[in-house]
């Protein structure tokens, strides 16, 4: 028999209590995983940001346009490798709940600035050739059952009217952080249609995507762009793609902070649950610890038994929690996708969340054992042998 066997046997001495404690930890790890995944999903755009791309927008707000003539001027700034016009389209696909991001872009320059949106050569060629073509992300294509050649209709809100687009490409992300829930179509198509309906809105851009040669040039180029249009009718605000994404995240900063706090509270709760179990366990075994000491077991041995048992229950709960998390977070992501559209384009348990959950379970296992170990090792043998639990 090894000490480890005694730890396992002790852990299952009160099977119901140990199972319930482990289950409590498992559920807490699951809740922690979901909360952290929500935070990760919010920060996904930030995480996926390029270090060599800038976003230029109207200094007043995103809702105000800029003249497209800015594009050529920006392109002249040393260090700029490419510029593409972009415009948030908005609109409704069948029903308002079918939300996904829709952008009018200059296709060629946009796709060269965003190589992470991967298309086949034929898809790209078809998309570039056809004025009312669009490309959509693989996730929304799968969700709505779209295939190449399908026509989809958007009901315009910012840009009123019925807008028909032919799907000529279904892009895949170059990695897991790439948002596969967006739709891109020709800015020219939007501009031409506006010429027919509201000519006054022609020739305007919502944002400029700006490619920069090196991350070292980013600050200089951003300052140069904004300086160039200072005191104009449409002053600009240029920021890195990361800062641009962060500005959206910061809008829900309080919610994210709350979620973060709750995720820490969840860990504190499981600590209390396990600490309570270990305290009860240690109290019940006072005489046994005294007997072990009598036999020559030292404080280190008792600590090993108590820490071992606490860690065993914590790890058991942590592992069960993580195993439950994988399918449940997948299902939760699916639920969010159905009910919140593409609000969270990527909703999956990240490696860092798994590592934090495992570390938290281990930490809880260690912390819950400290007080019982302290009491058991400090106890006088004679007192322990007299103890009536």
């Amino acid at each position, binding site marked *: *028999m*090894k*000490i480890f*066997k*005694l730890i396992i*046997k*002790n852990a299952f*001495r009160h099977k119901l209590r140990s199972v319930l404690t482990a289950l409590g930890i498992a559920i807490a790890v699951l809740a922690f995983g979901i909360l952290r995944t929500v935070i990760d999903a919010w920060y996904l755009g930030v995480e996926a940001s390029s270090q060599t791309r800038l976003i230029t927008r109207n200094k007043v707000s995103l809702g105000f346009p800029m003249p497209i003539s800015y594009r050529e001027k920006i392109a002249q700034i040393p260090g700029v490798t490419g510029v593409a016009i972009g415009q948030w389209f908005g609109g409704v696909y069948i029903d308002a709940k079918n939300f996904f991001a829709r952008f009018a872009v200059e296709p060629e320059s946009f796709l060269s600035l965003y190589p992470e949106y991967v298309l086949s050569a034929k898809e790209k060629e078809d998309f570039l050739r056809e004025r009312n073509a669009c490309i959509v992300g693989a996730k929304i294509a799968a969700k709505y059952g779209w295939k190449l050649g399908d026509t989809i209709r958007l009901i315009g809100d910012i840009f009123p009217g019925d807008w028909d687009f032919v799907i000529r490409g279904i892009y895949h992300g170059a990695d897991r952080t790439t948002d596969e829930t967006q739709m891109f179509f020709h800015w020219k198509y939007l501009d031409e249609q506006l010429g027919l309906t509201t000519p006054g809105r022609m020739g305007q851009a919502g944002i400029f995507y700006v490619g920069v040669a090196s991350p070292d040039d980013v600050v200089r180029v951003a300052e140069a762009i904004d300086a160039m249009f200072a005191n104009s009718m449409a002053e600009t605000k240029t920021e890195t793609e990361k800062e641009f994404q962060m500005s959206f995240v910061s809008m829900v900063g309080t919610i994210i902070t709350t979620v973060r706090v709750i995720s820490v509270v969840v860990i504190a709760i499981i600590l209390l649950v396990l600490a309570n179990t270990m305290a009860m366990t240690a109290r019940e075994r006072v*005489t*046994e610890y005294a*007997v*072990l*000491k*009598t*036999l*020559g*077991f*030292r*404080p280190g*041995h008792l600590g090993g038994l108590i820490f071992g048992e606490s860690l065993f229950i914590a790890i058991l709960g942590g592992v069960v929690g993580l195993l439950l998390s994988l399918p449940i977070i997948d299902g939760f992501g699916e639920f969010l996708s159905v009910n919140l559209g593409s609000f969270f384009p990527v909703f999956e348990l990240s490696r860092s969340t798994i590592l934090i959950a495992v570390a938290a379970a281990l930490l809880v296992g260690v912390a819950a054992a400290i007080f019982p170990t302290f009491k058991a090792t400090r106890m*006088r*043998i*004679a007192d322990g*042998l007299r103890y009536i639990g």
Partner: protein
Amino acid sequence: MANVVDVRDVTKSYARGNQKIPVLNNISLSVPDGEFLALMGPSGSGKTTLLNLIAGIDRPDAGSINVANTELGQLSESALANWRARHVGFIFQFYNLMPVLTAFENVELPLLLTKLPKQKRREHVHSALEIVGLGDRMKHYPSQLSGGQQQRVAIARAIVTDPTIIVADEPTGDLDKDSADEILTLMERLNKEFKKSIVMVTHDPRAAEKAHVIRHLDKGVLEDINHK
């Protein structure tokens, strides 16, 4: 014959709140090697306290205790734990076996503190359980054994490390007459056949009869020697 236990001028008291309760008052006691000594006395007379001091699980307020040629007062807690593991076999009134371990595993417990390989440990445990007549109950858990059998497992646990001295605190106190007789016969055998020095605390005059020497403790004072 050399003494296995030498208690000199030992005093011990316990604190209850602000009050100091004297338990042992200037006690001296010698136990020659190979002796079977019974300590008798009324409840609260200090028998168990004296036994605990001899076994190295408590420390006196004053005086010296030398057991198995070791001055216990000079040992650190850690050294005292090692000393107990090597020299003392303890038998409790309520057996104090680990309920989640089999008879074999309970007896093996003290050997986990030694460097004996698994095969040697197994041999020692088998021998100890055979001596106490439980060779066929090795895989039984305490709950599957009678009180007498549990106490025999506890005795096997006490002798498995071949200790210098066995201390027993009311070893028959929780047993029926037949089981108590079995245990006392076994202890007598350990003393005679295996030459183990035994110090036993008991209330039971029949148990004390098995000892070579009976000492009475009353109000913390040892009375005269009563040789059989």
